[in-house]
């Protein structure tokens, strides 16, 4: 048993390590130092959060923040995902020490969101994430300016809406804490709820608010896109969970149908537009939109089983999309940008083709891979929560998604030997890690389900 005081220290240590090491690296211009500092910090964060989840305890920090298993789940996710992004950035970024510093700021923002007790840290966290992600995009080549500006404008707008909604809630609870506002709150609370959903819809790329996604994903360098899709979006889902199940817990009958509709529309929107994409990045941008729809299924159901499924799928998709964008970035650096360019990839580099195939099959929900159990849990919770049509829509969408993943696979496994592509060891490391996670939890999902279940235990449900 570890003393709480030590845990407080341990929880904060990774961020200190990351920030200080990257600052030092900027001064000394040492890429390796920044890399090791960032990796140690990220793994430390993941390690501490496993301890917290394992012991099932919560650690309070200065009265404002508190690390519960729910936060630990997301810190674990963010930490391990950031380690992967760090490896990729080390390979592809020319200004890695600066990148590592900004990444550590972003990680601090994620920590604020994960450990929050009230609405204010959420806003700080969202701002930190937004500004640092926009910087990361901007810093890598001039062509990225459009994407960065788009992200910044849309993100700022979302945060502005979020702030406005916060102001509306202020009158019910001046402390802005994440406790349920009273049942007699009236229509202003409803407006606030709608604004919150809209703001987080922007952040999480939910249907009517997701038009920025394809352009930004396409314009950003692939490892930043991986971060954006794999972590930033997932933190937005956590905020959504805070808003809906902590703040507006008594409004469940009101928001549940709305989220249900959004889930269905998001799934269909992403999948149908993905059908005709030829650019790999845009294809996966639309695919990740539809995956956001799946995650919403569990939130719409709103039972403990549903949220467990959502957390499971958030974890699964986070790694799958980072792996996918790691591969896409690697392919991009070899001049492969579209589905047609993927022709005979298998004979050019078998490892990349096979792992890309595995990641796509996992996203499509093929058993034996992590995506299947995520979807199975989601659909089961939907049927158990009497939302039969939600499950049907989800299954129909899995079927649609097979078509475009199948197109890519079809192109990859053609027998035409061209010049081979040499493997890059950093990309290899990241992809191997992702594939290992996909198989590990795809074959034996119980530990991850257990983790998600414990995290959901800290959400006040009915």
């Amino acid at each position, binding site marked *: 048993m570890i003393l709480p005081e030590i845990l407080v220290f341990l929880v904060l240590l990774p961020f200190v390590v990351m920030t200080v090491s990257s600052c030092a690296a900027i001064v000394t211009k040492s890429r390796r130092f920044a890399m090791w500092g960032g990796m140690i910090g990220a793994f430390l964060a993941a390690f501490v959060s496993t301890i917290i989840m394992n012991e099932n305890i919560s650690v309070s920090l200065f009265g404002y923040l508190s690390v519960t298993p729910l936060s630990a789940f997301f810190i674990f996710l963010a930490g391990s995902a950031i380690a992967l992004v760090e490896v990729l950035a080390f390979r592809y970024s020319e200004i890695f020490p600066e990148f590592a510093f900004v990444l550590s700021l972003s990680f601090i923002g994620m920590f604020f969101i994960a450990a929050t007790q009230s609405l204010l840290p959420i806003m700080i966290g969202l701002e930190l994430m937004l500004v640092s992600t926009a910087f990361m995009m901007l810093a890598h080549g001039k062509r990225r300016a459009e994407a960065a500006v788009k992200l910044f404008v849309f993100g700022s707008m979302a945060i502005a809406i979020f702030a406005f909604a916060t102001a509306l809630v202020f009158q019910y609870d001046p402390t802005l804490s994440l406790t349920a506002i009273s049942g007699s709150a009236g229509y202003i609370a409803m407006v606030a709820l709608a604004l919150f959903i809209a703001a987080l819809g922007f952040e999480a790329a939910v249907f009517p608010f997701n038009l920025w996604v394809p352009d930004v994903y396409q314009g950003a360098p692939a490892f930043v896109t991986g971060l954006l899709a794999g972590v930033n979006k997932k933190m937005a889902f956590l905020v959504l969970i805070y808003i809906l199940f902590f703040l507006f817990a008594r409004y469940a009958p009101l928001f549940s149908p709305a989220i249900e509709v959004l889930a269905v529309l998001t799934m269909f929107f992403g999948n149908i537009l993905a059908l005709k994409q030829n650019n790999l990045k845009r294809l996966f941008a639309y695919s990740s939109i539809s995956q956001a729809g799946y995650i919403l299924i569990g939130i719409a159901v709103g039972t403990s089983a549903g949220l467990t499924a959502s957390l499971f799928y958030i974890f699964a998709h986070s790694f799958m999309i980072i792996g996918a964008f790691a591969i896409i970035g690697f392919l991009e650096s070899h001049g492969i940008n579209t589905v047609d360019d993927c022709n005979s990839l298998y004979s050019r580099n078998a490892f990349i083709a096979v792992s890309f195939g595995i990641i796509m099959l996992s996203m499509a929900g093929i058993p034996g891979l992590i995506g299947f159990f995520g979807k*199975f849990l989601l*659909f*089961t919770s939907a*049927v158990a929560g009497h939302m039969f049509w939600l499950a*049907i829509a989800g299954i129909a969408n*899995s*079927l649609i998604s097979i078509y475009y993943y*199948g197109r890519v696979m079809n192109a990859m*496994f053609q027998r035409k030997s061209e010049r081979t592509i040499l493997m890059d060891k950093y990309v290899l490391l990241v992809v191997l890690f992702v594939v290992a996670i996909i198989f590990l939890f795809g074959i034996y999902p119980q530990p991850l389900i257990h983790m998600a279940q414990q995290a959901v235990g800290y959400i006040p449900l009915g």
Partner: protein
Amino acid sequence: MVPIVLLIIAVNIVGVALIAFLKPEYSRKIAVFVAAVSAVGVVRLIIQLAQSGVQPGVVYIPYLNVGLSFGLTGVTAVLLLLSEIVIFVTAASGNVEKTGAKASAILMTLFQIAAVGIFTSQNLLLFFVFWDIGVIAMFFMINVLGGENRRAASINFLLYELFASSMLLIAIIMLYVYTPAHSLNIGYLISATGIPSNVELAVLISMFLAFMTNMAVFPFHFWLPDAYAEASTQGSMLLSGILTKFGGYGMLLMFGISGLAIHYSQYIAAIATVSVIYAALMLIRQKELKRAASYAAMLEMGIILLAIAAYNTISINGAVYGMFAQGISIALAFLAIGVIKSIFDESNIDRLRDVLSGARSTAYSFALAIFSTIGFPLTAGFIAELLIFFGAVQSFGVYGLIPLAGVLIMAAYFYSIISNCLLLRNKPTRAIGIAAGSQRFGFYALSLAIVALGILPFLLLVVLRL
């Protein structure tokens, strides 16, 4: 029973890894070795079944109440035996097209995992997992190793098969949510009560759609001709020999799980009859040997569906016997067609002449496969059709005999193929190769099985009654 199944699966996984990392020269040897080890394991399983019965499994995913439970019944023992025979022969007879040795060995071994898993798992979720592994392995088998139009054919196959598995998934989720114990254990589901009747109907419909798509029964068969025709020889053998039997076994399970199914058996039989007649009419328009054989496979699956719908002791025995007989005979037919194609570089019925003097063993095997498919006495197919139509008449009266018309049409067309392509001596097609020893081994093994089961049916019925 659990350790042996897991051991077989582990051996296969090790085999896949070895094939992937070693040179292509070793691929086939490893695949054959792994198939042989698995076959020994399966025989051991069947002996164990004869001595004891289904044993409880170990905990796997407690959250979903899913255990790793494996077991066999007489029916699954027969189907498992079938898949081991077909996979072993497929692996041993080698890649007729001589391309992609590594890929085909890996996919075959993966497919073996699926087959062993499906026929032994005692839990519907595991059944589903293995089902999809099989489908994906088959997709790549067509996509990577297939013929000219493999891209379209494989995507078509994948969409149909995943439609089937989506339907199956819906059924599984509904069963999981609405059974009182929230269990997917097959033994429990067969005896479970207390499922609301509308849910049971929905489960029945979605399961039926899933399995009929997999069996390629009439309105859902459109994946079949392309998939069979475009797949490599090994792919066609596995597709026709094993993959469609997943659906057949599923149908049997469906009748076991859903008590409602028996009320609709007449409609199911009607669908099966339509499918048989349709397949026969399509068959006689085919000019390409492989396509003709694929419609024959579809026709046979229709007959098997008829037998399952009749659902009495004789017809169930007939259905399982039929799946076995059809599996080995159609696999032999596809092997022979593949070899004919490689020897004569020709598979058009109008142009192929005098196969008998160009490739004697191939011609005899093809003829035997055809005889067994149309139910000629002294072949395995005869016993199967005898049992099936006895059973069908018992349940549906003379209407059960309508599909015989389809069989007759098929028989007539195949006799003409035999007399034209195999025997006709004017303008013989020139042979540009000979059948390899490994392919001849495949011919002998499958022919032996067909004849043995035609003369000594009790060999299989003993296993079936376990």
